[in-house]
């Protein structure tokens, strides 16, 4: 679709969506967030990254989205070496990922609709087609009636759902979420978790970092302990 992306037919048939090969990330002054991490996540797989606070879960997700670059090893996303991406190619990688951040990163001076619209404006979608997609995404997370509201008027769960709607509005093949239920009560957390399952059902690969082992019992588990797989 966009320049700099590997085309689907260029990837092998049983391709891995994500591959980590001996990946390390060291922050100055010598703190190892990740050490020699090796794993693959297959196309359309549902994986949870588990581990205590500070185990390196967020760092791992940031490496996938090229927010951080590995200090050792190779990170492949859809067959593309993310760590070696040119600066100019990074935006196009991110447009094919759905990112849900720990602190949501909503824009509080824009309405629910405009927040969900942002990735499409960035990608340069024609407004009418974009509006349709935004409404579809808001509908999926149950926020369609709130499209004119400002984010400040939303509850914590609603804000998280808006963040998810914004992540999927581009129809990415991979949805990445960092602690999406961290600040939610258990009932709301289960609702939000169900949304991720729904997207997985329709073929979207999902990678969720969480400290909560009970949230996705059915998912593939990748457990980190002090920056190493355990």
């Amino acid at each position, binding site marked *: 679709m966009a320049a700099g992306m590997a085309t689907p037919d260029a990837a092998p048939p049983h391709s891995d969506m994500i591959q980590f090969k001996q990946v390390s990330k060291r922050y100055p002054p010598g703190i190892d967030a990740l050490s020699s991490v090796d794993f693959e996540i297959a196309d359309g797989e549902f994986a949870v990254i588990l581990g205590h606070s500070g185990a390196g879960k967020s760092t791992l997700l940031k490496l996938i989205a090229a927010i951080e670059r590995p200090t050792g090893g190779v990170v492949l996303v859809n067959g593309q070496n993310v760590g070696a991406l040119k600066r*100019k190619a990074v*935006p196009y990688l991110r447009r094919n990922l759905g990112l849900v951040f720990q602190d949501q990163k909503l824009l509080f001076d824009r309405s629910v609709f405009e927040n969900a619209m*942002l990735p499409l404006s960035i990608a340069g*979608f024609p*407004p009418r087609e974009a509006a349709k997609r935004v409404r579809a995404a808001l509908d999926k997370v149950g926020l369609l009636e709130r499209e004119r509201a400002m984010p400040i008027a939303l509850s914590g769960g609603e804000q998280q759902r808006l963040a998810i709607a914004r992540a999927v509005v581009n129809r990415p093949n991979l949805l990445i979420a960092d602690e999406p239920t961290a600040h939610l009560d258990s009932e709301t957390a289960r609702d939000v978790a169900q949304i991720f399952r729904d997207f997985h059902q329709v073929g979207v690969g999902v990678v969720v970092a969480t400290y909560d082992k009970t949230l996705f019992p059915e998912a593939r588990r990748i457990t980190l302990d002090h920056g190493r797989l355990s």
Partner: protein
Amino acid sequence: MVWLHQHRDALLLALRRLTATPVNTLLSLLAIGIALALPAGGQMLLANVLHLASGTAPSPQISLFMSLDAPRAATEEVGNRLKQNAEIKAARLVPREDTLARMRASEGLGDVIDILPKNPFPDAFVIDPKDDAPAAMEALAKELKKLPRVEHVQLDSAWVRRLDALLKLGRTGVAMLAVLLGVGLIAITFNTIRLQVLTQRAEIEVSRLLGATDAYIRRPFYYFGILQGMLGGVVAWAIVRLAAAWLAAPVGEIAQLYSIDFALAPLSQWDSLLLVALAAGLGGLGAMLSLRQYLGDA
């Protein structure tokens, strides 16, 4: 199409940011407007003076005076020589009797002249040179001075040259003002864009995370700078226009007192267009410098 949509969105966003802080925007526009009104007003005055100078100043002439005791025959001889001179377009004789009559007719001088024992005025010629460049006129004057019985040759171009020098000074002054205050405009834009980048930090960060290119992020700031400059230019234009309207009555009064046919003309269309375009361009430049400094390539 995509390209067009993105530019329209960026323009709308810039407009929204401009109107989101009306007081700040108004102050910036006033600062830019006043800064630009100075050179623009200077240009307007200069254009008017130029117009006035070209309208009322006669083409430069040379006055030639015979010696007082020169007989009429000598004067006629000089007149013939002048007619034959290829450098001279026209030469008009002013006989001493005519001068005396004219002076006697003028108020206050008549009595004085009546007391004088004899005509104090010499025969004279008023000469229109073919080439009125200062150097050529000077050369011609020197040549004419060698004619027999010629007492004095006077260049009437001195005041034209003085005016020319003054206008040159005025032009330089306006240019200096324009450069200085243009830099001021860049500085104003630089600062407002810096503040914009700071207040939009969250939006910039989120946009980057969602796959925005550098161009996408910079675009609304460019439009902001250009729009602000352009509107500032319009404010400057309005200020100059108002000042012209305000000055029109007193200037007209002075012109009447000096019996000059003159009305203060506002900035020409071309100058007005240039003013607004230049302001927009400088605003864009200020935005570019500010973005380079504060958006960085991180």
